[in-house]
């Protein structure tokens, strides 16, 4: 597929970014406070402030009490800091009849994300390896369909999958949802691994073959240890992607096993009762915390993941 090539070039350019960010390469500018610099840094600082604003709003709102929210505005810093909303969001906020807070959704999301990430990466990496090194008749055709399939709107496929899962007796279970995440993670991950394994020198592969290593031997003893960085990129893509998923969670699980995003939406957008904006924002922040931590810890690897992960749209 044509996209493969363009993603490759983008990935290469991303590496170039990573190399060059160390510092300006040209001669040192003469004046620090030139008009150009003031304008440039001024604009960037304003833009950054805009992008950080919602994060700031989430934090300050979640630390205020309700009376303070009612007299103030969303941007005002808290006069009296309280962690009550956080405790309530985590432990006692209600969705429907359940009043055990967002903790339930959090643990559901963990139970969904961990096996989904492991299974999808295992399958896709072996798959990419087969596509790169053990082509067989038709393998390229399947790969093309897989990549084209990444562009089909999920809405087209959700109902047939409901029927398939129901036939298998796992509709509404976490197993079903894990399989769904594995299916929809497959195009992007297979592409990622196939491209990586194709770049491994063929001599290495041939030498292993001469030494009598087979399909699985080469995979586990050579390919896998050699490609740990790409596994980390895959983990980053999948953890953020699956944690942030809403549609599959709401379609393929029952209310008691809803992932965190679905539960969050149900808590905040429930029509009953008084709106507790501070609890809502604490809950929102809690849900965003996992991908945010992954983002800030992974740094450049997240950017690498985007080059490939962007295919998912």
């Amino acid at each position, binding site marked *: 597929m044509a996209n493969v090539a363009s993603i490759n070039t983008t990935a290469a350019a991303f590496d170039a970014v990573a190399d060059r960010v160390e510092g300006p390469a040209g001669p040192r500018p003469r004046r620090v406070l030139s008009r150009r610099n003031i304008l440039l840094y001024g604009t960037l600082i304003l833009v950054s402030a805009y992008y950080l604003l919602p994060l700031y709003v989430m934090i300050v709102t979640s630390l205020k009490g309700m009376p303070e929210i009612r007299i103030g505005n969303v941007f005002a810093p808290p006069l009296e800091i309280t962690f009550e909303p956080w405790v309530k969001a985590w432990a006692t906020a209600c969705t429907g009849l359940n009043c055990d807070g967002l903790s339930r959704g959090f643990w559901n999301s963990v139970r969904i994300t961990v096996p989904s990430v492991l299974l999808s990466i295992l399958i896709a990496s072996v798959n990419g390896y087969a596509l790169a090194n053990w082509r067989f008749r038709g393998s390229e055709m399947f790969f093309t369909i897989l990549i084209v399939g990444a562009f089909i709107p999920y809405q087209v496929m959700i109902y047939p999958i409901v029927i398939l899962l129901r036939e298998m007796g796992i509709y509404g279970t976490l197993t079903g949802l894990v399989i769904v995440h594995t299916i929809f993670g497959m195009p992007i991950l297979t592409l990622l691994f196939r491209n990586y394994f194709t770049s491994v020198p063929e001599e290495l592969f041939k030498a292993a073959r001469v030494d009598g290593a087979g*399909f699985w031997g080469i995979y586990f003893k050579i390919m896998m240890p050699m490609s740990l960085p790409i596994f980390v990129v895959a983990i980053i893509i999948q953890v953020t992607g699956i944690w942030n998923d809403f549609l599959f969670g709401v379609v393929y699980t029952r209310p008691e096993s809803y992932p965190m995003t679905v539960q969050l939406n149900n808590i905040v957008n429930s029509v009953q009762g008084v709106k507790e904006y501070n609890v809502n924002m604490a809950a929102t922040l809690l849900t965003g915390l996992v991908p945010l931590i992954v983002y800030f810890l992974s740094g450049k690897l997240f950017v690498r993941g985007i080059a490939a992960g962007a295919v998912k*749209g």
Partner: protein
Amino acid sequence: MSTRSDDRPPFRPFRNLNAKIASVPMILTTMVVFVGGTFWTVLYSFTKSGLLPRLEFVGLAQYERLWGTNRWLIAIENLFIFGICMLVFSMVIGFVLAALLDQKIRFENTFRSIILFPYALSFIVTGLVWQWILNPQFGVQGVVRNLGWTSFTFDPLYNADIVIYGILIAALWQGTGLVMCLMLAGLRGIDEDIWKAARVDGIPAWKTYVFIVIPMMRPVFVTAIVLIASGIVRVYDLVVAQTSGGPGIASEVPAKYVYDMMFSSQNLGQGFAASTMMLLSVAIVIIPWAYLEFGRRRRHG
């Protein structure tokens, strides 16, 4: 033996048996879910399916009903406005930000991390935060009114005429970082010498960008447009979180229409017809692009 160099391996069913076994999940996914599922949905969009799928063909009746439904028409109109604005603004803002970051500045990493971080957040989180910021009583409108401008009105989420722009604000906040990142990679791919040559010839920087650099970045633009466009068609979570389709049905989008028809209204036929229309709209974007890229590749070997 590795068959990487041959383009057409001969048909021998038991050769590479392990590779074939390893590819079973991919084969099942592509054939059963992607091809089979798509075919199934398109087929059933011509049936009378209601609460349960039923193979009772009614021709194009579902489509006629779909295009006669006000809610669907609003959804399409919203998708159109949202799509055009999202494409234009995310491209322009993304490119300008990338160009600013490309000026050999200090703290580039910090600025880039800040602009990109919303992309790591889910649409649900994005939608809920912006729902709160755009709250007319406590949010932007309230703040400006408290400053003394008491007639100031900015309540996109409560005004049916402009609600889609309220969603656009959130979507741009979440998505421009991605475009910025792609564009920055594209800019870094441009040869330094081109900048030097332009400077020697005394061409102003903006002209170099518009007439030299942007045309050279065509592949990056195409990738970014395809990614943004395929994301636009799927927009669903953001609307659910931010407005639940409201006020009334003013911010409905096709993906939400499909979901509601299938899982809330027990009107499967409508859901299938609507999702087939979504597929069609994606195909209209993707096929010409794939054809162009494929065609070029083939001609140049």
